[in-house]
């Protein structure tokens, strides 16, 4: 059988019995075509609506996208989370969406095997978590203001030294300037922020010694540094060369004075204008308990008695103690030592907040009564293995609390809002479900349409 045979064969199946087309065939076809287009548009719109509905129903996060940052004011009660959120790589940066007024700033993560490290700011009015690192540093030098509304970064750069003041509620930044200093050995250290938010105490290296000898730059092993005060409002700063080497500082509740620790267990209460007002003698081996050392009633200054070596030569931070010093210059008795190694703030003149382990792997922020040493756990840090791909427990370091908010702080249940990046990531399952539902709908309607058009169908 060749091509001609096949042509003849097909031609043999003649068309003599061909029925005439229906008179309204063209009109009927046109109606069907129009209906087909309408149906396809309807199904498309329905599928799109279904996707949106499923995403909205399955995924609760996007509702936060429409929430504005709550205003910080006296009518809002600041809160601490009952449990700080576990580590997440999808936590957004504070620049992506404001965190609002903050209650805490801390470094969190692990660097045992790799590096999982974040500097996190935690909201005071909502359970917001935002990363607060700089482009250059995962753990930048940064202070949290006592009212929780600002971060002050120190940004060393060539030629000038700049502070960057970041408003957490408006995300506006302001550049402030430090005194000039020069050293190849040490640098600027931010020490404390005054309760009224106006002053920041910091230290800078002293001018190089006249004899040019390296040993002349040290006193009792401390590099010679000098106190400086930054006026945040006016962007003015003053160096006090007569006050140093500075080992630590904390402001008084009136914001006009600060206590500065010097070498040889010596401390001075000085005015923000630089006058030495009163000398304090610290216990040998004690250090000022950070920038929150001064009690809110002005009567006590907390120091940390560093742990001594045990008989076996080991050193344990749990052996450290909080020792109180009378700040009024009188001889009235002070509370007994407390078995903790740090002070994060004061909830009242008779209770301090400390960070302490509550299990082998779990730290917490604990309120300690000065009267009887009774402890109350306020906030726990997650002890889940979530750092370094689940291989390590994350630890919290360098915790700073908004000390001006602690007297009225309440606890809140944990409901982390990590920002838009986490919301997008967590919305993906909802989007997938929505797309699958839309695809299924499309398939079902398409099949039904095809059957309806099938002339041999039922």
């Amino acid at each position, binding site marked *: 059988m060749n091509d001609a045979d096949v042509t003849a064969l097909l031609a043999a199946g003649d068309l003599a019995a061909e029925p005439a087309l229906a008179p309204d065939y063209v009109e009927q*076809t046109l109606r069907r075509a129009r209906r087909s287009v309408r149906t396809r548009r309807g199904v498309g719109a329905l599928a799109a609506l279904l996707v949106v509905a499923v995403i909205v129903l399955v995924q609760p996060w996007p509702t936060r996208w429409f929430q504005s940052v709550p205003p910080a004011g006296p009518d809002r009660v600041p809160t601490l989370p009952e449990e700080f959120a576990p580590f997440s790589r999808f936590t957004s940066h504070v620049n992506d969406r404001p965190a609002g007024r903050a209650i805490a700033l801390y470094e969190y993560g692990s660097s045992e095997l790799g590096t999982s490290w974040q500097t996190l700011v935690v909201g005071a009015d909502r359970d917001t978590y935002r990363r607060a690192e700089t482009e250059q540093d995962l753990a930048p030098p940064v202070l949290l203001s006592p009212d929780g509304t600002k971060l002050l970064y120190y940004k060393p750069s060539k030629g000038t030294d700049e502070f960057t003041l970041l408003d957490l509620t408006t995300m506006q930044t302001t550049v402030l300037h430090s005194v000039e200093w020069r050293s190849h050995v040490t640098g600027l250290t931010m020490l404390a922020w005054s309760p009224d938010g106006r002053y920041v105490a910091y230290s800078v290296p002293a001018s190089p010694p006249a004899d040019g000898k390296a040993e002349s730059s040290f006193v009792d092993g401390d590099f010679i540094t000098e106190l400086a005060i930054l006026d945040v409002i006016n962007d003015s700063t003053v160096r006090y060369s007569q006050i140093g080497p500075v080992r630590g500082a904390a402001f008084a509740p009136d914001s006009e004075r600060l206590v500065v620790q010097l070498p040889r267990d010596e401390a001075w209460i000085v005015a923000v204008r630089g006058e030495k007002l009163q000398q304090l003698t610290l216990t040998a081996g004690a250090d000022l308990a950070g920038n929150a050392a001064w009690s809110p009633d002005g009567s006590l200054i907390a120091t940390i008695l560093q742990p001594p070596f045990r008989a076996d030569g080991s050193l344990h931070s749990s052996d450290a103690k909080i020792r109180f010093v009378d700040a009024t210059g009188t001889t009235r008795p002070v509370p007994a030592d407390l078995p903790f190694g740090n002070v994060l703030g004061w909830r009242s003149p008779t209770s301090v907040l400390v960070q302490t382990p509550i299990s082998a792997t779990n730290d917490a922020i604990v309120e300690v009564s000065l009267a009887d040493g009774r402890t109350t756990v306020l906030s726990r840090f997650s002890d889940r293995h979530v750092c370094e791909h689940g291989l390590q427990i994350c630890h919290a370091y360098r915790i700073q609390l908004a000390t001006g908010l602690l007297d009225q702080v309440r606890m809140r249940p944990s409901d982390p809002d990590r920002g838009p990046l986490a919301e997008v990531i967590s919305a993906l399952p909802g989007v997938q479900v929505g797309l699958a539902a839309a695809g299924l709908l499309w398939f079902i309607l398409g099949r039904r349409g095809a059957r309806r058009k099938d002339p041999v169908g039922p």
Partner: protein
Amino acid sequence: MRAEQEREYVEYVRARAVSLRRTAYRLCGDWHRAEDLVQRAFVLLYRHWRHVSRATSIDAYVRKMLVNTYLDEQRGWWARRVTPNADPSPRPPDRGPDEGAEHTDRRLDLMAALARISAGQRAVLVLRYWEQLSVAETAAALGCSDGTVKSQTALAIAALRRLLPDYVADAPRRRGEGGTEAEGSQA
């Protein structure tokens, strides 16, 4: 679709419906199914008219739509299970009794044979030997390569030869008698 475009579409449908239905009939062997296949192809054409109407050959597009519609239908589980064989068409009224009987028998044999080869091979035969398309045009209509068209054509002819052994024997004699019925029926 704009009114002017729709008018052009209607004109095209009106002009080509009959001839496309014949092609569809060759594909499926049933006038009612052929009518529906063509209508479904026209519905597809309506959706894409704005794009297709700018093409140099609208017929090529529509032919491709028609063949795809036919092949899609044949691939469906419903068609595989319950599509009935084509009903025999009534005897042509304008032929003599003997000639008509022989003609009807041969046509029924042909339709039965075509119904037994695969849909793709049948489409190849219809496009190549009924529509008189070249190998390349057939390949474009089916969305396959020239080689596939050639191989499928060979397989289809082999299947027909196997299914219609008598016709192979009769064919030279019929053509030798001069003036084939095929020419008459195509005219």
